[in-house]
């Protein structure tokens, strides 16, 4: 029982990281109608920047996180401006291939800047582990921080999309880009803003991911990125609560699958679930009922 709870909580913690990354995928897809496969690598950049701030410049962790968020935001907007904006009228295949190209570019730039040797990220979570059942069940501080951040980000983002003017224009662009433009909404700025928010979230996800799982390499973001994409599709791409739900469920399935079925099949299970969901509910768990796509 204790070990089940332990696995469950690990799953929720891993899932929360997937969820934060999935939010970025989902928002960009909802608004720009493109799959930004470089999203996972922005996570990696975020983690490297925070690592450098702590390791080389000896800044306090909170400053490191802020620098990482700012740089990733700028990076996200820059990628959008240079790589995706010129292709706005092209086929979706062209954009997809460009995104994959950007992904490789970021990985190799990281290899160039930070070198081939793996780095070890020092956790920035200041509080201790939680001990339950007389020390039998230990929930790490990083896990708690990840879950709390995940929930806070989802609530914040939902409020932003529903309550603010920028959020309103995002919803408008996601429903009909041309009509939104006719209504006087600056579509380019809205899309740029979406990338900015998505990339800022990626920085947070990178720091949380590497606080829990410390090894940092230029490919750190790839697998979590792909799984988060799966989570976004699983939950219903374009939907904010869907991304959150999909992420958490995927994390739990992965960990429980590893624990009770087979450690090797953890990843396979994740993708098997995706296939099953797509067969029976092609729009994802929350894709249909929530029509608005942001």
């Amino acid at each position, binding site marked *: 029982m204790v070990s089940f709870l332990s696995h469950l909580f690990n799953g929720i913690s891993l899932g929360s990281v997937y969820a934060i990354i999935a939010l970025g995928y989902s928002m960009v897809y909802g608004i720009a109608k493109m799959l930004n496969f470089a999203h996972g690598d922005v996570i990696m950049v975020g983690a490297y920047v925070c690592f450098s701030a702590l390791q080389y410049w000896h800044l306090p962790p909170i400053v490191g996180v802020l620098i990482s968020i700012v740089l990733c935001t700028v990076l996200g907007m820059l990628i959008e401006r240079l790589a995706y904006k010129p292709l706005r009228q092209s086929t979706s295949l062209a954009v997809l291939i460009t995104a994959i190209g950007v992904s490789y570019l970021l990985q190799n730039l990281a290899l160039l800047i930070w070198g*081939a040797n793996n780095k070890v990220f020092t956790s920035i979570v200041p509080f201790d582990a939680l001990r339950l059942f007389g020390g039998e069940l230990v929930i790490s501080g990083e896990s708690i921080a990840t879950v709390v951040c995940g929930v806070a980000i989802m609530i914040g983002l939902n409020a932003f999309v529903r309550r603010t003017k920028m959020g309103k224009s995002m919803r408008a662009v996601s429903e009909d880009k041309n009509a939104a433009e006719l209504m006087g909404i600056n579509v380019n700025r809205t899309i740029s803003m979406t990338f900015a928010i998505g990339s800022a979230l990626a920085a947070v996800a990178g720091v949380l991911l590497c606080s829990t799982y410390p*090894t940092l390499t230029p490919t750190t973001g790839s697998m979590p990125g792909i799984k988060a994409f799966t989570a976004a599709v699983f939950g219903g791409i374009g939907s904010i609560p869907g991304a959150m739900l999909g992420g958490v469920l995927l994390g739990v399935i992965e960990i429980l699958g590893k624990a009770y079925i087979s450690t090797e099949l953890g990843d396979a299970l994740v993708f098997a679930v995706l296939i099953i969901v797509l067969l029976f509910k092609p729009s994802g768990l929350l894709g249909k009922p929530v029509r608005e796509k942001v």
Partner: protein
Amino acid sequence: MKKLLALVLALAMTLGMASAVADGIKIATIGPLTGPYAIYGQNVANALLIAAEEVNALGGVQFEVLEAQDDQGDPTLAVNAYNALMDQGLQMLAGTVTSGACIAVGAEAFNDRVFCLTPSASNDLVTADKDNMFQICFTDSNQGRASAQYIATYGLATKVGVIYNNAIDYSMGIRNTFVAEAAELGLEVVAEATFSDDNAPDFSVQVDAMKQAGAELVFLPIYYTPAANILARAKAVEYAPIFFGVDGMDGILTMEGFDTSLAEGVMLLTPFSADSTEPRTAAFVAKYQELYNDIPNQFAADAYDAVYVLADLCTKAGVTAEDSYDAICEKLIAAITAEDFHYDGITGDMQWATDGTVNKLPQAVTIVDGAYKLN
């Protein structure tokens, strides 16, 4: 003008030829210089240069070290790298660094008749059925066996767990002989957990399995990248068994940003400790630090020994730079398997069997205050 150009070109070519003749026996290594195992390849490549320079300075056998080739630990890239080196006139190979690549390159080198002395490719298949392939390091089966013997001899634990990567030959090979030998020696393997990707971040399930089973010692026949994640996870859930690694664990302390307190008390089977006071080791470590601003690991030490072994063999067999690589191969095989040939290097006093495996004493170190301490 054209004539002048032709003259200059002809002169340049003659000079080029002249310098090629004057150079020594062409050796090189192939290894991961980038990617997750980069630290191994870089250590081997650096140590190779240091040792070759020392050997050349002695005035006897002269080596020309060709530029180390990057294979990222990948067999296909390694074979490409091998072909590139052969095109440059390679005469003997001090490689490759990792096992999978070495098995692939070994097959080519066996057909071509190129003598290979690998510093660090430890899989049993590296030397199997190849009379031209020799190892400086222990084979995996010997590492697994030696680890179990070490644990039993020093009474480190009776309940042991194993976490290994079942997608790579290296990890599987050591795990198999470890478990077999542990059973012989009365060590109880209470839990085994696997993973299949060295870059997989999450080890919560595997570490929890060890904790639940009450393993007093966790044997980690894996590379240091996943090991770092396992140590971090164990600390997060306050599980503190003895962690016992093998040569793949070497390098964990040099990972940038690694909290060395995580590795406090970790033991590993390695023939080399950088803080040794043995004069040759100390001199090598000092030179390596001066040139590369880093502390060499076991792979560097193995490569350093490999060059000296090659030099010794070339002297004994009378090999010169003019010999063809296949002629060299036969001479060196005869020399290295000779009954009386042994080499006392910085990784131990080594002798070779005809199957290519090395015979030397196993040693273990404990990590104390972020440094190796020879037990």
